[in-house]
């Protein structure tokens, strides 16, 4: 057999092909017009109404009926995703919205946020409630005939809902050892049941709390059977909700099936919810565009850049990109290390250019401020706020950096002996942004600060967080369920707050926080909140960086879903949502 020897130049084919492909791609790129740096300004994107500013409306009536514009259809499998893998299923400990979105359809709460109107609270498991004149006693009347899911082998399976279930659930909610949300409900002194009246729940408060009903309506305040040990919530999901938990396969998906005995007759509409695991957002986005997902997560992951692609290529897709009650911050360990020096904290607060962070990290969408949403009345007046967090046009940044340098030099740091800190960062697209940005900002101090990023997966990151084994945290991120000022502090800054990882403890702040909970006069509350904002911006246990605006997208066959939840945590049961399987674009 005779083989003809290949010409040597032919072996250069891969190289030439590679260069050719590059040249082709470069040639095919759009002509000279530069990509706008503020994408959303160029392409208007439909947004949901902005969150309300005042205390939420509580509607003591039946839940909002399904809008009757279209006749709902039953059946179908709803496919969505909620990011990377779960560590466990207890949404009060694993507080990430990823947990909430997956287990949420299995639970009900005493009251709930409306799925259709922003900031409206309506009955859920409680038919109604009464408040004593002194505001210290709340009596909830439970709906009769509500049963827990029937899941063989799980404690409490198929039992009737009664007061001990609510007490068991809310006692967990307020126990810091079993709930990172315990700081929200410190006002509760006891939850009482009377065996003679099993459907009556009496909640007693130490002091009035203007937002207690809202806090009990938050997505994570789900009711579990009293037979289920609290620890079991990490491996078991059982509630009274519209969908029954079928299981979770690590790296793949969670599956929930329609609850045939759901107490709201006729609901839910869909047969199953499949919530996929997509550690990489671009893969999820590609799956959504390929119609393998009906909704690109009902939580986040739509940024202005993705919204632009959808707007151009899939104009029928519904995109929602409103401001969220979600803020990013950085903090260090106050108990030891450089972060315990106030001058270091002040320097960090000074050298981070926040407006630029919104421009770059938020793709021009979002805002910056302190610990209260900057677009609300609870935030300090802009002129005063800017003295703490910088001017909108960043014109004061050179002077702020100079002050930061002086503070660091006073603290004993120099270019030959720079401040060196290791910054823990959760290794996801969103969570890496702030620490990367901060590291770059620190370089503008002429070598006085050297930050080393330590990217970690969620389990390792959580572990170091819980053990307080970090020097600095660059991926601080938190969400509040509604605009209630105490919710932006409760879990993070009081001495015993469950998510007070920085170790901040100031009796004066705690006193103001207690006052805030019981103060019902709006004007006085505002003054008090402003005092607390000033206190936190002076003590600087943590450094606020920016308020996030991220969106969601869904195909037009997903019906009856409204993006009314500024927090992503509350509108998760999907019981009103149905799939229009006759829609011409519906994937068959």
């Amino acid at each position, binding site marked *: 057999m005779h083989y003809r020897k290949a010409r*040597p130049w032919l*072996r250069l084919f891969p190289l030439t092909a*590679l260069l050719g492909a*590059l040249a082709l791609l470069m040639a095919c*790129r759009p002509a000279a017009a*530069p990509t706008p740096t503020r994408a959303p300004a160029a392409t208007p994107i439909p947004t949901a109404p902005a969150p309300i500013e005042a205390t939420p409306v509580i509607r003591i009536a039946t839940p909002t009926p399904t809008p009757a514009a279209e006749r709902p259809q039953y059946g179908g499998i709803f496919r969505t995703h909620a990011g990377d893998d779960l560590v466990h299923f207890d949404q009060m400990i694993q507080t990430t919205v990823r947990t909430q979105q997956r287990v949420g359809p299995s639970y009900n709460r005493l009251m709930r946020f409306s799925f259709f109107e922003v900031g409206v609270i309506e009955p859920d498991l409680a038919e109604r409630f009464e408040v004593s004149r002194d505001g210290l006693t709340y009596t909830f009347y439970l709906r009769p005939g509500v049963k827990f899911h029937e899941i063989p082998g799980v404690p409490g399976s198929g039992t009737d809902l009664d007061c001990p279930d609510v007490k068991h659930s809310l006692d967990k909610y307020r126990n810091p050892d079993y709930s990172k949300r315990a700081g929200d409900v410190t006002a509760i002194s006891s939850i009482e049941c009377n065996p003679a009246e099993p459907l009556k729940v009496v909640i007693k408060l130490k002091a009035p709390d203007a937002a207690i009903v809202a806090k009990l309506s938050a997505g994570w305040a789900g009711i579990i059977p009293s037979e289920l040990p609290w620890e079991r919530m990490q491996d078991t999901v059982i509630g009274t909700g519209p969908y029954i938990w079928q299981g979770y396969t690590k790296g793949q998906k969670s599956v929930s099936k329609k609850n045939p005995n759901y107490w709201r007759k006729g609901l839910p509409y869909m047969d199953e919810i499949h919530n996929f695991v997509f550690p990489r957002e671009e893969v999820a986005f590609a799956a959504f565009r390929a119609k393998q997902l009906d909704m690109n997560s009902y939580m986040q992951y739509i940024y202005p*850049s993705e919204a632009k692609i959808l707007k151009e290529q899939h104009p029928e897709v519904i995109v929602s990109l409103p401001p969220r009650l979600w803020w990013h911050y950085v903090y260090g360990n106050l108990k030891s290390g450089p972060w315990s020096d106030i001058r270091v904290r002040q320097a960090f607060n000074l050298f981070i250019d926040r407006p630029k962070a919104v421009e770059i990290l938020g793709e021009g969408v979002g805002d910056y401020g302190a610990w209260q949403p900057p677009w609300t009345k609870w935030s300090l007046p802009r002129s005063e706020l800017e003295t703490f967090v910088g001017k909108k046009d960043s014109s004061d940044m050179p002077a702020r950096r100079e002050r930061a340098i002086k503070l660091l030099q006073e603290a004993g740091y120099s270019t030959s002996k720079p401040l060196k800190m290791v910054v823990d960062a959760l290794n996801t*697209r969103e969570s890496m942004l702030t620490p990367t940005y901060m590291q770059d900002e620190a370089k503008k101090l002429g070598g006085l600060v050297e930050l*080393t990023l330590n*990217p970690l997966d969620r389990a390792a990151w959580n572990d170091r967080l819980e053990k307080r084994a970090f020097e600095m945290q660059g991926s601080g991120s938190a969400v509040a369920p509604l605009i209630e000022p105490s919710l932006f502090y409760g879990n993070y800054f009081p001495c015993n707050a469950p998510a007070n990882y920085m170790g901040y403890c100031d009796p004066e702040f705690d006193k103001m926080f207690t006052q805030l909970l019981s103060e019902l006069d709006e004007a006085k509350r505002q003054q008090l909140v402003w005092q607390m904002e000033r206190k936190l911006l002076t003590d600087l246990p943590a450094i606020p960086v920016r308020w996030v605006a991220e969106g969601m997208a869904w195909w037009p066959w997903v019906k009856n879903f409204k993006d009314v939840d500024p927090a992503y945590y509350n509108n998760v049961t999907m019981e009103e949502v149905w799939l229009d399987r006759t829609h011409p674009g519906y994937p068959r």
Partner: protein
Amino acid sequence: MATTPRSASTERVGLVRKGQGFWKTLLLSARRKPLGTAGAVILLLVVASAVFAPYITPHDPNAITTARLRPPSAEHWLGTDHLGRDVFARVIYGGRISLLVGFLSTILGTGAGAVLALISAYWGGVWDNGVQRFMDILWAFPSLIIALVIVTVLGSSTRNVILAIAIVVVPLAARVVRSQVLIVKEMEYVKAAQALGASTWRILFFHVAPNCVAPYIIVATATLGGAIVTEASLSFLGMGIPPPTPSWGRDLFGTAANYAELAPWIPIAPGVALSLAVYGFNLLGDAVRDLLDPRLRGR
């Protein structure tokens, strides 16, 4: 003194022949192996751009600016990424890390493997068995998995990534060099050195080792490209060089993928750089193998 085995060995290696200068030999080899020359030129370009990066671009590869997602232009030759960083600057600075990791891990790994093989094969017996079984164990796992485990345990830093890749490389070098040692140690000049009473270490490092250089160089050049790809793979999995240090792997696979559609230059640039470097190493490796392997010499 009779004929020195060393001079014989130099002839066997075949790069510089007696009476022929180094440069002349190099020129001849380049003419005989045009693809290898192309590989060397590519690598020279990559190395030069990495070394002289600050003179080639005025941009700081880590400087975050508001000039986000800009397409290639006179100011930003390969555009900017989602944080407004100059992609060209990141590519050429990224070459520093990729090449540093590639070279150091290869030298460390193949060096350690070669020394282990030299000693174990020459002594034979229990030592050889023990070392080879350990190599079997290392080889039983996919190299990326071993590297991942090592980086997970030690933490992700440039030093640890180099160490992880080096450990992965050890068995390959050990196997190839061992087989050569087994041949060389039976050669007459080695027997002669033994008969003359030369010490074991002298025989190992002055008579056996020089005659195992050819397969060692082949393994090393072939491994370099793989080492760079392993670094890129580790970075893809978030376990490589910590950000924001520019690295082809991280810049190719990380956030770049999110913007691949809006700003394709972000993943393409490091991708092409990575491919070119690996391609260059492979071409050069092939040519070196052809030149050093007596069975292929002259073809």
